[in-house]
């Protein structure tokens, strides 16, 4: 217990703790939407496409996360546009954006003179180095997501469950699809620092899969997902600190263990 109190006296650890809490909120809620609507692969495409923005950010000397945000939103829109208007099959469209983003990122990181600092932290996450500024952004996002999903809960639920039927009820389906796509993009980008591009899909799917074992109700699944995501992030954070192993990977490992335990108990 003493050692926990001691840990919380370090700024970096408090920041990491807050980051895992805020990541759990945004990823838990948005991930439930992603999993329920079966758009995990689209989310993967957006995640990897955002690497292009990180590369350009390095090259142009701006914060890589800003570049990542722009790339994430553009690819999210691009995937929808390609498959709805461009007559490209959706999974192919995702793969095109996925690899295009990675390619742009690699080229610009290569072109950036000298060494690209922290590149590994964008790829694999580095929760222990999250800055105060990033925390404020994560807090703002968490608040926006909570408000949006509370206020428009039924609209989001109905559109996700049966889009055609929602259209016949004259709900603004296209508007919500785009708004939710933007929220997915922002969630991915702002949580890149927690677990990294390669691993972020786990925060959007494993806690949700765990929650789905216990409930088949959209609203509850969101709440449980936030809970599981937070528990896993906190335990993973502690283990990674004491064992001195990478935090992102440890958090995901913890998530899978919790998933397995819950599955076993419910079995």
């Amino acid at each position, binding site marked *: 217990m003493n050692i926990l109190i001691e840990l919380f006296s370090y700024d970096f650890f408090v920041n990491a703790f807050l980051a895992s809490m805020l990541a759990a909120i945004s990823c838990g809620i948005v991930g*439930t939407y992603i999993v*329920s609507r*079966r758009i995990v692969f689209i989310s993967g495409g957006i995640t990897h496409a955002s690497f292009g923005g990180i590369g350009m950010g390095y090259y142009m000397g701006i914060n890589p996360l800003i570049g990542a945000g722009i790339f994430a939103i553009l690819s999210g829109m691009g995937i929808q546009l390609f498959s709805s208007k461009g*007559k490209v099959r959706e999974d192919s469209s995702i793969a095109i954006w996925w690899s295009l983003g990675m390619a742009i990122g690699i080229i610009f990181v290569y072109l950036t003179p000298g060494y690209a600092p922290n590149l590994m932290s964008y790829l694999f996450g580095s929760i222990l180095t999250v800055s105060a500024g990033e925390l404020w952004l994560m807090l703002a996002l968490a608040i926006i997501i909570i408000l949006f999903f*509370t*206020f*428009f*809960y*039924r*609209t989001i*639920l*109905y559109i*996700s*469950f*049966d889009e*055609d*039927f*929602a*259209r*016949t*009820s*004259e*709900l*603004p389906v296209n508007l919500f699809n785009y708004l939710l796509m933007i929220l997915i993009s922002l969630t991915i980008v702002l949580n890149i620092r927690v677990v990294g591009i390669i691993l972020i899909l786990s925060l959007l799917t494993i806690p949700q899969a765990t929650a*789905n074992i216990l*409930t*088949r*109700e*959209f609203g509850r*699944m969101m709440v449980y997902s936030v809970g599981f995501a937070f528990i896993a992030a906190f335990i993973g954070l502690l283990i990674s600190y004491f064992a001195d192993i990478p935090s992102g990977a440890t958090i995901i490992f913890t998530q899978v263990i919790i998933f397995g335990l819950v599955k076993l108990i419910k079995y």
Partner: protein
Amino acid sequence: MKKLIEIRNLSAGYEDNVVLENVNLDVFSGDFIGVIGPNGGGKTTLIKTILGLIKPICGELILHISKTNIGYLPQVNQIDKRFPISVFDVVRSGKSDSALFSSFHRNTAEKEKAESLLEEMGIISIRNKAIGELSGGQMQRVFLCRALMNNPELLVLDEPSTYVDNNFEGELYMKLKELNEQMAILLISHDVGTISFFVKTIACVNRNLHYHPSNIITEEQLTSYNCPLQIITHGNIPHTVLKLHDEHERHEHTH
């Protein structure tokens, strides 16, 4: 009789593929139209166009009622059965014109309406179950409740008898006959034999639409535009004549 829908010289389809060509149809209040035709003939395209889910390529679609006044029961296989949603929420989604800002309303009337519909269909006991835990018949009842939430003037059903047992199928058609006293019904089915006992008129859709102002169709009418289907007549006892694959064989009578 009030005219609800007018379709004039309408063509519709997907991308470069025209599925319906030059279709004309009027739907009046009190109508009970059975829409029949082969798979891929354009039945679903027709109702999706009526519902505004597909834009017509050319021709006119005039709705004399608001879109929310059309109740819609989609094909079951269009639904994600593993979606985390309860029966009660599915039914409530039928009133989704009030969903936009519903989080801070009490929606008492909406909940009561949903409850009374579930009661009426005899499935109030499963109201908290997830949609994926239901049998085929239960699921169709739930979607029928959802379609009725707005007290529609027109009810559109796309193959409501797939994945259900014979018992429920009969029950469903009796229910539709009852509902027809309050609303017009457009019923898609591949099962011409059964629906012909309940519908008042028949529209045969196979790229074109041929409307029969009665529920009796003759073999000539069917074969004249390639509707390779069962043939229905009404005698004292309802019976169905199944057309055999071999044109020269005798017609077989069944009940």
